[in-house]
């Protein structure tokens, strides 16, 4: 938006007609650009800023099972931050986030790399990319739940391994464990890594790679010194998707851990189902802060706007 305004201004100045008409023009262009910004500002204001403000306000209220009482209490925050459950839950959620982020980045990057550099025709690239998205045509929940019959005690993996004589008795940690949670999350979120990385890889000028090879770089050096630095914006965008999605997840944790593990959002959901809205709101504000800090950290490492 700001870029557009300065551009307009310079054009008018460059036209070299200072005076009344130009001033009117200048003013109306100012007004016009503000007017242009109004719809978006209103949508964001009503549907984004206002709700967040409401959450922040409610997080200071008092409550019982029946209703909320406007107040200014900090107990919701002291209860949340003062409890070892919260800290443990945050630690657990961060653990999932770190594991899922690392795995989706590894898998996502190689899938994108393969699509971008090893598939020769654009048509084939697009076909294969669409193939990657096919599972996403089914619901999130279905994709998650389908893991249960695969990983269960009498599931596909265990029965196959037992029949092949690899293991004497079923492996218990396949389902209702951290392993199951991370597996399902990686499965659900890898595409969010593939898409932006694939996009940036496709925009890399191939002559840069040729130049590097001519200069004597081997494959790893090209990857490390040319491709990865140029793919950084894609990696950053993908990371933002994955980190925010995993930090806010409750259904995957609930279903795949069999209710044995907690995540921050699950904690909030529990509070909401018990109608403890202010406590949940306080938790939401804390989570929002943490996620914003994480996103800020990612953006600090990679300037998305500069490199896009």
């Amino acid at each position, binding site marked *: 938006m700001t870029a557009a305004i300065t551009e307009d201004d310079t054009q008018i100045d460059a036209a070299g007609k200072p005076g009344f008409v130009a001033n009117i023009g200048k003013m109306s262009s100012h007004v016009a650009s503000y007017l242009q910004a109004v719809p978006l500002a209103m949508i964001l204001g009503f549907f984004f800023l206002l709700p967040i403000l409401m959450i922040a306000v409610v997080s200071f209220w008092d409550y019982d099972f*029946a209703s909320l009482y406007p107040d200014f209490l900090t107990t919701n925050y002291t209860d949340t931050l003062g409890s070892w459950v919260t800290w443990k*839950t945050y630690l657990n959620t961060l653990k999932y986030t770190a594991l899922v982020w690392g795995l989706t980045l590894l898998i996502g990057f190689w899938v994108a790399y393969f699509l971008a550099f090893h598939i020769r025709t654009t048509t084939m690239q697009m076909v294969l990319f669409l193939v990657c998205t096919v599972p996403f045509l089914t619901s999130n929940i279905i994709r998650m739940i389908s893991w*249960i019959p695969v990983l269960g005690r009498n*599931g596909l993996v265990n029965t196959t391994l037992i029949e092949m004589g690899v293991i004497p008795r079923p492996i218990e940690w396949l389902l209702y464990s951290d392993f199951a949670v991370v597996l399902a999350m990686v499965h659900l979120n890898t595409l969010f890594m593939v898409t932006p990385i694939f996009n940036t890889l496709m925009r890399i000028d191939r002559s840069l790679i040729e130049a590097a090879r001519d200069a004597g770089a081997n494959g790893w050096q090209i990857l490390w010194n040319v491709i990865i630095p140029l793919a950084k914006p894609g990696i950053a965008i993908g990371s933002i998707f994955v980190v925010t999605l995993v930090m806010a997840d409750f259904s995957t944790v609930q279903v795949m851990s069999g*209710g044995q593990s*907690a995540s921050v959002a699950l904690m909030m959901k529990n509070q909401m189902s018990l109608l403890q809205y202010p406590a949940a709101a306080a938790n939401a504000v804390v989570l929002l802060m943490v996620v914003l800090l994480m996103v800020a950290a990612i953006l600090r490492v990679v300037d998305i706007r500069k490199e896009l």
Partner: protein
Amino acid sequence: MTNDTKTPKGISRRGLLKSGAAATGAIVGSGLITGFPTIWAQNPITLRQFGTGVSNINAIAEKCKADLGITLEMTATDSDAAAQRAVTQPDSYDIADIEYWILKKVFPAGVIQPMDIKKLKYYDKIVPLFKTGKLKPDSIIAQGTAPHTVGYVEAIGDKTFAKGETQFFTMVPTIYNADTLGIRPDLVGRDITSWADIMDPAFKGKTSILNIPSIGIMDAAMIMESMGNIKYADKGNMTKEEIDATIDFLIKAKQDGQFRAFWKSFDESVNLMASGEVVIQSMWSPAVAAVRSKGIACKYQPLKEGYRSWGGGLGLAAHLEGAQLDAAYEYINWYTSGWVGGYLNRQGYYSAAMDTAKEFMTADEWGYWIEGKAASGDIMSPEGKIMEKAGAVRDGGSFEERMGKVACWNSVMDEDRYMVKRWNEFIAA
């Protein structure tokens, strides 16, 4: 989870035919049951009912429309939302379909008006469990929020419950049951007789309890007490120390790997059992039926310490008056007159007015569901699905055997908030 049953407002030719037929049916069919159904057919009355129990059953709304001409708009919610709505939006409903422990929470807010038992046609038929707390004169009164403790008030307008039976009934009981542990008889490999058996090291990693704090804590209490770890003064109203002891015990069991999972919804409990992930767990009776309908052995195991029971009823909103109030009484009298009772009994729940329900069940159905006899033919669900084959006997036996052995009722504790906080720690631990 909202489940609305509404009839369309506009008049179509088809709708007109249908309601005409319904009105005729009401006049013809309900002459025996009620005195003045034609009034409602001429001045259509709508009753808005919300809650946790029978509000889930659309067949009841359809039958009510056909028999009485009263349109029931039903909304189903979970119990916490029901408690909240009962108090905060008292004008949004005419009939509250809630459990007794919710009633205990919401009644002091003055949103439910007591009923005059003189206007309740079938009051005498209601089982004594809801009047005195005793199914039979020699029964022991169970712990927790037993329905009779919140069943009466001394006078209209009272905010506290009466000690004994009075003329003013807070809710007409509708649906109740006795819960216990479900087991896979083919996989447990031994007799299960006690709540303590769920903690048997042999079942390590193969057990589950439900993750709904207010009910889960009761199951945990049954387990704790049967293991001899503690003796509660009242399982339904624990002290902070008792809550701490119970939760600490659960956390230890969890960290030792005793539990495979914790379930929150009906389908989760069915899948855990059907897939063999767990062999013994907290369960609800329809979930046991669902596992069996897949051809998998599952037993609703009676245990020597007794059952954890729950019950719900219909309460009248405080704002009801005049014709609406009459219609509400009419509806409740219809409700207890037998058809609904038979329907609920055949679902595996219990009706509060057993004598009237009996007339709407076959001798075989009555024998299987209520008397604990072997079924002579196939037992069908109200929807017409085969539930049990001929020869089957209900787990736990007869109505008197099951409801006569209730150890505690679902309840709300004074230290509710503390309990929920500690329960969350258990889940996070």
